[in-house]
């Protein structure tokens, strides 16, 4: 949590904060970690079993609700590149993080299959594996920016329920072949081993396409918060469908209509209906620098940076506006640009010191262009809740302070 005190401290010492503008750092004072005056004159620390972050880098998730059914957000404004460090991957649980012994872990696959089968974790790891770098985003991501508008909102608060990892696991298609999924099957139930025994119905076609049972994240076993020891991974689809701590897959010829796909994770529309099974996450982007609580200590050259992603494929373009959407310019995309993955964009900006409203707008390979809030509300209604992927904006004040704002004023 960025405290107001940090902001005031930073505002009071703008010149000394120049090199670290936009990033949270340890504040000055007696709590600052001690270091030698000249590190070349003191022998350094020996190797160790586990690495640690520099004590000057106090990264952290922001716990929004400290409940078993709560969530914590990734500090987007503090990160570079596209990979989210595993311990900073966002969390959203429905009944807390279960403790599971991998030796006792079992995955049951049954229903409309030729061979109902139980797999151990070792079985899953024995199958041909695949790794894919892709994002997982909660479909509620961005909701607070719409409903709980505060100009003192960080990228973490606005959009911190998205993270990207390099996931490794067994393609679900291989397990489908192994158990002999029947041709008439159309849906499967994915069930978790948490206290919510979380369930979602998933089209079998996604299983044949690019779904995975993932057991590794960024090179090591999954974190408990991300589903240890194995989870469903559905690239590009809303996070809650990617059931963590997966214990059971039941194949069927119709959806199960669980609580999380009827009473929740459905999208009311202005024509007095509600959309079900809205799986794909549409294209979206957010500027992560400069963004609240960053302060630009001087005018001149600054690199506007951010993330763009689409659940429907690759990002093909990100446009940036520094004048509240009156004009747009093409940003640079950092390699790699991967499908269904966070993509880093950069735009070099010469700030002349005027009040400026910064915006980013993503386009994906289907030709979908990230909409404005007005466009979204027009088609979804004012009561819309999930899948809020509208253009976000940040207002840079003349004194260099930056605040979140949905629309230019």
């Amino acid at each position, binding site marked *: 949590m960025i405290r107001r005190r940090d902001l005031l401290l930073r505002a009071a010492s703008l010149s000394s904060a120049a090199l670290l503008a936009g990033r949270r750092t340890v504040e000055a004072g007696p709590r600052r970690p001690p270091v030698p005056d000249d590190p070349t004159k003191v022998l350094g620390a020996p190797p160790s079993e586990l690495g640690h972050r520099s004590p000057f880098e106090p990264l952290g998730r922001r716990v929004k609700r400290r409940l*078993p059914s709560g969530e914590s957000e990734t500090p987007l404004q503090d990160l570079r590149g596209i990979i989210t460090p595993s311990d900073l991957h966002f969390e959203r649980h*429905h*009944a807390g993080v279960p403790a599971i012994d991998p*030796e006792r872990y079992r995955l*049951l*696959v*049954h229903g409309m299959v030729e*061979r109902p089968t*139980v*797999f*151990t*974790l*070792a*079985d899953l790891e*024995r*199958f*041909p594996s*695949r790794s894919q770098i892709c994002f997982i985003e909660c479909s509620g991501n961005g909701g607070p920016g719409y409903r709980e508008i505060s100009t003192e909102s960080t990228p973490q608060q606005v959009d911190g329920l998205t993270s990207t990892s390099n996931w490794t696991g067994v*393609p679900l*298609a*291989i397990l*489908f*072949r*192994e158990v002999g999924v029947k041709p008439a099957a159309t849906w499967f*139930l994915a*069930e978790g081993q948490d*206290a*919510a*025994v979380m*369930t979602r119905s998933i089209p079998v076609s996604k299983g*044949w396409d*690019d779904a995975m049972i993932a057991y590794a994240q960024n090179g090591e076993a999954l974190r408990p918060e991300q589903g240890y020891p194995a989870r469903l991974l559905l690239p590009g689809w809303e996070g809650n469908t990617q059931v963590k701590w997966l214990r*059971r897959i039941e194949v069927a010829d119709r959806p*199960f*209509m*669980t609580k999380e796909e*009827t*009473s929740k994770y459905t*999208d*009311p529309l*202005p*024509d007095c*209906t*509600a*959309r*079900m099974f809205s*799986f*794909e996450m549409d294209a979206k982007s957010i500027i992560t620098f400069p963004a609240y609580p960053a302060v630009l200590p001087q005018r001149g050259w600054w690199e506007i940076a951010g993330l763009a992603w689409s659940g*429907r*494929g690759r990002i093909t373009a990100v446009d940036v506006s520094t004048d509240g959407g009156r004009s747009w310019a093409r940003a640079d995309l950092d390699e790699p640009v991967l499908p269904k993955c966070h993509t880093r964009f950069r735009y070099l900006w010469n700030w002349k010191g005027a009040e400026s409203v910064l915006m980013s707008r993503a386009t994906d390979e*289907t*030709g979908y262009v990230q909409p404005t809030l007005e*466009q979204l509300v027009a*088609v*979804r*209604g*004012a*009561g*819309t*809740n999930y899948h809020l992927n509208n253009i976000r904006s940040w207002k840079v004040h003349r004194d260099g302070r930056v605040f979140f704002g949905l629309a230019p004023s």
Partner: protein
Amino acid sequence: MMRPAAALVVAASVLTLACAGGGEPPSEGRSSGSPAPARPFGAAEHARSASEALPSRFGFGRAATDAEVKTWDIDVMPDGTGLPPGRGTVAEGAVIYAAQCAVCHGPDGRGAEYDSLVGRDPDQGFPFGKDPALLEKRTIGNYWPYATTLYDYIYRAMPQAVPGSLTPDEVYSLVAYLLFLNRIVPENAVMTAQTLPRVEMPARHRFVEDNRRGGPEIR
């Protein structure tokens, strides 16, 4: 990453693996009938040079027993598939609700620390898409499309402090009580595997398919 237990399945898989020669077309020894292409996971270009063709089966894992399936297969579908024997009444449900549910959902089901379960307001027109203030007013009575979902969810996950601790009769009773509070069934209703799937929820026909398809149109 390989665990000792994996060695146990090696023997079972040798036969199928041996049937696929290095880069050669599959031998006659392979079983057929797979509904999917040989490389269903999109890595064909990278794998073609060195990896052997996928066997139709690896033989990993073991057959699930009926008892194992029965233990975990607790889901209930809208047509009642999965509902166990048992019965419950509104009166019995009221007692269980007061003891197990009221602390989180309020004495009358209208919400406390957790969601409101009861209420028909707004009763007409399903206007939830029009007004953000209605977000917190969604209840079983005005939003849930299937009564069977109640049984499924309460049985698997409630009450939060002791999840999965209720018997089928207790769950049937709670479902009866909650449907009664929402003015969907009468006070003398009895919920069973036969009666519950026949309950018509007010929001039953309000749900539509996702029509977003990417491309230039915003939906």
